[in-house]
């Protein structure tokens, strides 16, 4: 275990942000913290990176106690926070040099590592451009390798693809996988994108209101929901009677938009047969139908009773800033 977290708890003025969580991360894993805004993801990252003191509990990172040996921990970790923390007026190279020197590397040591790192994220030819001329995706890529300059054992990525377009997001995922395999670095990331957790993580930990709801490989989590395939069906109007009959037969209807419905199907063969029979009986025609396996989103809804993006986000970030400023 490269990260061992024990009963970690954090309160802000009586409000519990992290509620006594315990978990472990294996060396070499990509471990994801999945939850909506305000679930306690960033607070956990801030504690694990020594930026915040926990109210109680502790953690060991690479064998060092967070509270007793913070300097040892800091030497072995890297953090990519949500906000870009590059110096825009410096070049990519200068940013890396400065960062390396913070970790006690000499200028020449850093200079030697730079080409390889920039190559990794395909920024080699922009090494001497000022960072403020970079696109959002380029800045993210630079941040990703910036934290590798001192060869950390674990890197923490707080919402690594937030605010990026889908193509860029996919590229970032590839880079993260590449860092993980080529540099053998353990990755701890937070996200509120289901897809990201599903695509990227070896293990996912679902967190909400500061508590861990479930943890495991994405496939494993989905399997734990049982054989609950989801049937997406579109019916001809009027369909109210059809849906209420279906519910009375014991099917759970996840969402309805007009006459499009997602139905939790249990075993798909049985469900499909019943659906068609009912449609024939009520004279409703099915205009389209598809069956899909459950996603992490379904897992999340299973545990929390709501979708991950239902909760209003954004403002919690500001609150966090305000809180940090106050202290």
């Amino acid at each position, binding site marked *: 275990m490269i990260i061992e977290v024990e009963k970690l708890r954090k309160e802000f003025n009586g409000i519990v942000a992290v509620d006594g969580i315990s978990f472990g991360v294996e060396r070499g894993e990509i471990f994801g913290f999945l939850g909506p805004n305000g679930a306690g993801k960033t607070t956990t990252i*801030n504690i694990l*990176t*020594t*930026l*915040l*003191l926990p109210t109680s509990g502790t953690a060991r990172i690479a064998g060092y106690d*967070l*509270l007793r040996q*913070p*300097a040892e921990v*800091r*030497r072995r*970790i*890297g*953090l990519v*926070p*949500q*906000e*870009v*923390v590059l*110096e825009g007026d410096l070049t990519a190279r200068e940013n890396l040099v400065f*960062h390396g020197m*913070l*970790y*006690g590397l000499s200028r020449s040591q850093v200079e030697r590592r730079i080409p390889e790192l920039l190559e990794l994220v395909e920024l080699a030819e922009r090494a001497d451009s000022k960072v403020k001329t970079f696109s959002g995706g380029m800045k993210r890529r630079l941040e990703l390798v910036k934290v590798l300059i001192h060869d950390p054992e674990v890197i923490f990525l707080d919402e690594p693809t937030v605010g990026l377009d889908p193509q860029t997001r996919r590229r970032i995922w590839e880079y993260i996988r590449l860092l993980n395999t080529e540099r053998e670095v353990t990755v701890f990331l937070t996200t509120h994108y289901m897809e990201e957790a599903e695509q990227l993580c070896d293990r996912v930990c679902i967190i909400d209101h500061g508590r861990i709801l479930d943890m495991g490989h994405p496939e494993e989590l989905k399997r734990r929901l049982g054989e609950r395939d989801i049937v997406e069906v579109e019916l001809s109007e009027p369909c109210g009677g059809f849906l209420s009959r279906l519910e009375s037969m014991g099917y759970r209807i996840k969402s309805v938009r007009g006459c499009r419905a997602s139905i939790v199907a249990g075993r798909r063969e049985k469900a499909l047969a019943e659906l068609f029979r009912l449609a024939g009986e009520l004279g409703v025609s099915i205009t389209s139908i598809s069956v899909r396996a459950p996603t992490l989103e379904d897992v999340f809804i299973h545990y929390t009773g709501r979708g991950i993006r239902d909760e209003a986000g954004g403002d919690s970030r500001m609150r966090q*800033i*305000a809180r*940090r*400023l*106050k*202290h």
Partner: protein
Amino acid sequence: MRFLREVYVVFWKEMLVWVNNPMLPVVRALVFPMMWIVIFGSAFGGEVNHIPVAVVSEDTGELALSYLSMLSTGRTLELRYTSPTEAERLLKTRGVYGVLYIPPGFTDELRSGGRVRVSLSTDESTPQIAEAMSAHILRVSRTFSAALGTGDAVEVVRNPVYGRGVKYLDYLAPGVVMMTILFSSIFSGGLNLILDREFGTLKMLMVSPVSRDAIILGKIFAGVAQSIASGAVALLVAMLMGVHLKSGAAGFGLVILLMFISGFGFIGMSTAFATRITQLEQLMVVMQVIIMPMWFLSGGLYPLESMPDWMRPLAIVNPMTYATDAAREIMIRGIIWQTLAVDFAVISAFAVTMFLIGSYSFKKTLGGVK
């Protein structure tokens, strides 16, 4: 109609924010303009008075006494009767701005219908004061002579000892140089820190193994270095414009040292403020309520002697007063340690105190594992 409603909504929201944040509007709308009116209205337009002047009188005759009593009427001068050597020392150490010498036989000469010369040795490093002092003595001498029946019985010979030919530009420049240090400290110290925190750049340092003290010291030293750079530029510009630097290279070095010490004080001060500040607007308030008055009440623009009496204590507790005074001493009067010692002692004490307060409160706000 819809447009008006939209205007109203926007207006209403702005007013709501304004009213809900009582500190800012009160300061902006009330305190600040009043302060300007008071400072500019009374400190800059005011008459210079209570000017200390040493009197060396070699004549104890009746006319000498009545001449001196006429001089001390009103609030312009404060006469001190001393020996010639003491007078000279006072003039050197800025205990007085002038020495008035009444020659022996003053009374007898005037009685017999003759003329006398009184000499006035002046310190003109503060031109406004030198002017007010000389003008007052000339006016009294003329009135005194007229009373005796001859228009020019008493002739005043003015003899500038310090700051010969000093113009207002020379007077202003040292203050402006120190003002540059003060203002740039606010930006290099406080503002920088607030922005760092806002944009998370501080986080990058905080997760690194660099010690917390090193982060604080590094930031403060950078702030001081930036302030000195801008102060040095201001000094060079002043010299290009023909401002005196009486004490030459040694003086230049001493002014830089002064910038260094006061830079620490001001950076420490602005860091202490910044740790309590969560919005940029609040920094503007600090700027307007604390920093600007520090500059205006420093004697940088106009001598302290022209301030009303109630305002002078503010100038005396203002560290900027000593910084400005020291810079002016060095640039106009030369390196005279008897007077510079007090200035340097006060500024150094201020710098040490503010550095400690600033770094302590900075460290406290960093949070996290120590």
